């Protein structure tokens, strides 16, 4: 479905006066996201998770290597093709307080991608509202929420709206960039349940970016660890969590707090 092959990404180099030092954000990243599966991308801040996501979403161009989506090389697309491709790859952002326009109603927020991609979706303007209601119901909201504004919703509800918007253009690949890290555990559990349901119902393929190892272990089929722009470990979730091969993955897993007080890593007297 999604094949990331030897991708490198370098930023900068050019400065206002003379040349600055270039920053290598990604080097030789190879990752495969099979259709219908959920792949977790784990790493600390600055490891290149978000840069990779931006490249997949065509918001940044890769410096080297290529990203194949369904056999199409994303870095060779023209602007028009890129625009059409965006309907098939959508994203849910981390902060549901910042990623919704406060002056747009829920109906307009969710309908906007349908309007942008109207040629592909072939929905008449009248049909869009019905489709919005359908999507809201799918994410656990209802028709009564159509004409409300984001501030009237809780964090968990806003994230549901963000998910409905991402689903509006009927994407095949969903990139989830830390979708639950701004939420309480109780709400996080609801959103994770929603995501697993959606995946089962719609056969979505997801790239799940997170620094929360417990969440990744729960929701992902495969997982890749990113460290300083390189993939240090990749495999099925089971393999990686039970028998990590790289030192980095081992260190990160050891630092993961355990909710069982008897297994605390701090020596207790």
């Amino acid at each position, binding site marked *: 479905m999604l094949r990331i092959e030897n991708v490198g990404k370098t930023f900068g180099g050019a400065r206002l006066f003379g040349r600055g030092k270039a920053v290598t954000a990604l080097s030789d990243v190879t990752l495969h996201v099979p259709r219908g599966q959920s792949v977790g991308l784990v790493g600390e*801040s600055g490891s290149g998770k978000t840069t990779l996501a931006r490249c997949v979403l065509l918001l940044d161009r890769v410096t080297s290597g290529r990203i194949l989506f369904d056999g199409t090389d994303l870095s060779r697309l023209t602007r028009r093709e890129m625009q059409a491709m965006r309907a098939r790859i959508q994203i849910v952002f981390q902060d549901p307080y910042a990623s919704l326009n406060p002056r747009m109603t829920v109906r307009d927020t969710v309908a906007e991608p349908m309007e942008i991609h109207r040629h592909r979706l072939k929905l008449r303007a009248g049909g869009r509202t019905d489709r919005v209601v359908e999507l809201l119901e799918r994410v656990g909201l209802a028709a009564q929420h159509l004409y409300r504004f984001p501030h009237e919703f809780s964090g968990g509800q806003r994230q549901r709206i963000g998910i409905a918007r991402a689903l509006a253009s009927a994407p095949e690949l969903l990139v989830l960039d830390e979708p639950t890290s701004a939420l309480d555990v*109780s709400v996080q*559990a609801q959103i994770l349940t929603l995501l697993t349901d959606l995946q*089962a119902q719609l056969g979505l393929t997801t790239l799940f970016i997170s620094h929360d190892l*417990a969440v990744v272990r729960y929701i992902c089929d495969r997982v890749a660890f990113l460290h300083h722009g390189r993939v240090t470990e990749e495999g099925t979730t089971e393999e990686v969590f039970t028998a990590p091969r790289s030192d980095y993955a081992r260190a990160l897993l050891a630092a993961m707090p355990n909710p*069982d007080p008897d297994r605390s890593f*701090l020596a207790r007297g």
Partner: protein
Amino acid sequence: MSEPLLRIADLHLAMRSFDGEAHVLNGIELTVRAGEIWGVVGETGCGKSLTGLSVSRLVPSPPARYLSGQILLEGRDLLRATEAEMRALRGRRVGMIFQDPTTNLNPLFSIGTQLIDVALHAARHSPDILDDAPRGRRRRAARALAVRMLEKVGIRDAAVRIDDYPHQFSGGMRQRVLIAMALIGRPRLLVADEPTTALDVSVQAQILQLIYDLVRERGLGVMFITHNLAVVAELCSHVAVMYAGNVVESGDVRAVLKSPAHPYTRALLAAVPVAGTRRGSLAGLPGTVPSLIDPPPGCRFASRCASAGPDCLGGKPPMVPLGETHQAACLRLTSGAG
């Protein structure tokens, strides 16, 4: 047992808002002794931070109003202290660290200047912090102490780095600087409000280790506010679970996390995925924390509780002792505790 460092007794706090007055703390009870690390957990809006801020009297009033109760710090009621008295206590008896290490350091001053200021301020009331240095030598003594504190919290080349500015440190390093700053006045009580939430897991592990070591070394009492139950299990000796302005369950960390009695504690634990949680089996907690402006009568958790009955709305459920150090406030404990 020794006299508690901190005892919060029946603390009620109301907060004025546009829609009316919200009763945000509804009779908080919490006792922290030296050497104990109390995890304070609960969802957003349950009053965890307000409880922590109350200990330093940093809740602005108005809009806040303390209705009743006591906050006893080493036997002295902070709710009766004047602002001048509180200034003398902050940093010297109570140290605080907050979630975001970036916004809590002044970007315009070197970290040394900021640490020295705190040390000098604390030394005004307890000169022994600077080994009773005479007037002219206090600044030099404070600087030496700042270097020692930075070394203690694990900043390498502290004597050089003390003149660096906050932007020259990483997030984890800044949090270490803030811990040094909170402890430079030798407080006995540390209030840490989500100190590791903004950090990566590997850095979080280091900060938890640091707090743990400092507690063992100095016999500090700690109030560690977090929403992460795994962090509580890792670090804390005790835990208080808060819901809508009440402590609903508290006690020894093993007792509470291994045999949770209150339905809310159970729901929180069930929402955290652990090794072996089957996909799709994670139980979310439906609904949200009720409005505290006109809170429902009786148990505030009743509206989201699966085992609630009509009697739950009768009045605030009393704390029921379940063991030597374990108690919960629920009428359904016998049927609930499994």
